[in-house]
């Protein structure tokens, strides 16, 4: 273990500390903490946007099939690389292609859900359609994995466990860029999010250009959920739970308060989950996906039992 005092010294730029410790902290621990903050905040916000857009407290990037869409994109890149072969295969395995494939996958699924939802007015039906998309993409992934090599399959499965580590500073910069764009679009949408709470008809009667703002919200969500999923894998639970935890704690539906509050509580929650997954005093690291669900789900259940009500 690295003593806390030494950690602070390294963070302050003291070069007298043991070099291996410096390396671990600067190239592994610090990026991981930053990734946890970006992922928690980004997934939380994308869940919040979905819940308001669909006016349904059950909506979230995972439930609506966004994560599955991203998984399909990544599966095509990782598992399909040998299928396409040659130059195209070479291009497909770069990090950029991963993020494009993943964002594209989640964007397409979300777009499909929205197109269907403009015809089907029942929000329950929309969620079921989201689940159907999820199972279709899961089926496609299993078809792809049947035809891929063991090595590729292993890469894909490790990706699907979810991991906040493994990101270099360069990759972190890309993730940060996507995060800034997604959050920027969200902040631009705060005003429209509040009227969308009243439903499309009221929103329109208040002068809102529904089509434009719905597109911006979908874009923001798929950039956030897509880029995050491509780098750290499909992380369950955070997108659904963080908005609810925040709404219960802050007792409001006003997005001027909710957006910054979700950013904050999402980062805190995932940092906490990450600390737990490191299992202090032990050699093991649990998959982050398991920790978020094991730790977070009981908290949400407890809060709901106490408050007895879910809000959009």
């Amino acid at each position, binding site marked *: 273990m690295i003593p806390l005092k030494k950690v602070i010294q390294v963070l302050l730029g003291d070069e007298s500390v043991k070099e291996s410790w410096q390396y671990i902290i600067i190239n592994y621990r610090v990026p991981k903490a930053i990734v946890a903050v970006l992922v928690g905040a980004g997934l939380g916000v994308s869940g919040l946007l979905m819940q308001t857009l669909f*006016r349904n407290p059950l909506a979230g990037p995972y439930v609506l099939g966004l994560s599955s869409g991203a998984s399909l994109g990544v599966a095509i890149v990782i598992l399909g690389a040998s299928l396409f072969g040659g130059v195209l295969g070479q291009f497909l395995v770069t990090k950029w292609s991963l993020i494009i494939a993943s964002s594209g996958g989640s964007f397409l699924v979300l777009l499909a859900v929205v197109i269907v939802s403009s015809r089907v007015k029942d929000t329950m039906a929309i969620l079921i359609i989201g689940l159907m998309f999820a199972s279709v993409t899961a089926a496609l992934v299993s078809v792809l994995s049947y035809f891929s090599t063991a090595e590729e399959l292993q890469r894909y499965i490790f990706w699907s466990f979810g991991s906040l580590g493994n990101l270099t500073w360069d990759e972190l910069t890309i993730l940060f860029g996507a995060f800034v764009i997604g959050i920027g679009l969200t*902040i*631009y949408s*705060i*005003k429209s999010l*509040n*009227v969308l*709470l*009243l*439903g499309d*008809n*009221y929103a*329109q*009667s*208040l*002068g*809102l*250009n529904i089509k434009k703002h719905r597109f911006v919200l979908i874009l923001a969500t798929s950039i956030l959920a897509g880029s995050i999923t491509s780098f750290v894998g499909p992380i369950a639970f955070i997108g659904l739970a963080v908005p609810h935890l925040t*709404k219960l704690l802050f*007792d*409001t*539906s*006003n997005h*001027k308060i909710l957006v910054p509050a979700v950013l904050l509580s999402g980062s805190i929650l995932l940092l906490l989950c990450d600390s737990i997954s490191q299992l202090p005093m032990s050699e093991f690291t649990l998959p982050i996906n398991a920790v978020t669900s094991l730790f977070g789900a009981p908290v949400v259940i407890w809060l709901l039992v106490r408050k007895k*009500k879910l*809000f*959009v």
Partner: protein
Amino acid sequence: MSLKSEKHIVLKVDNLSIGYQTKKSQTIVAENINFELAKGELIGLIGANGIGKSTLLKTITKSQKALNGAVFVKEKSLEDISNMTLAKEMSVVLTENVAQTNLSVQELIALGRQPYTNWIGTLTEEDEVKTKSAIEAIQITDLIHKKCFELSDGQLQKVMLARALAQDTDIIVLDEPTTHLDLYHKVSVLKLLQKLAKETQKTILFSTHEINVTLSLCNKLIVMKESMTHFGSPKKLIEEQAFDDLFPKDLVIFDSDSSSFKIV
């Protein structure tokens, strides 16, 4: 100049056909609708269930396209008015349920100021004043710190009306503002609308099933029937016998002496 042309017409419907357009076919719900609504008038829209009252209101508020004819808001065709401009001329209160949000009543009413606020929705001093005066006009000052999901149907109806009032438009359109309310609250909402129209010179159009109350409170009525759509003052419509075939005659008939419907 005649008295009529001195009136300030804010909403004009000219030979309007309403209904639904799909790729292949057209379903006409009602056609040949003509009326002119002036400043400060309270207008009731009545008709049997399914006759197209909501469709007409949707067409007027631009959430649905007209099949034929035109709607003019202050002499400008509805098609040429952007959502944003329309939001400053016309506010709506719908039958939709919005109770499931955790916004406070104050926040909800302030949403009526959206067309006027900046990109992130900051309320200026003027917005605060307009919100406050809307709350006072509807007399719901005691509710403003409550959450929307805590309100009763009647309270929520008043809050939505206050939100429309905060939007500060010359026209307010309400779709069945009195459903779910008991007789006392029905009359109190309609009385309030009458008072608002008179005092603030707004034009208020609402659809309703409360024919008896409407006849005594409204300046004008729009009566939708299978055969045609009537428009005029209650007195004129009774003379025209517009109400006689409003419903099938086997259960209720209109008694023009008492201007109300009676069970056969």
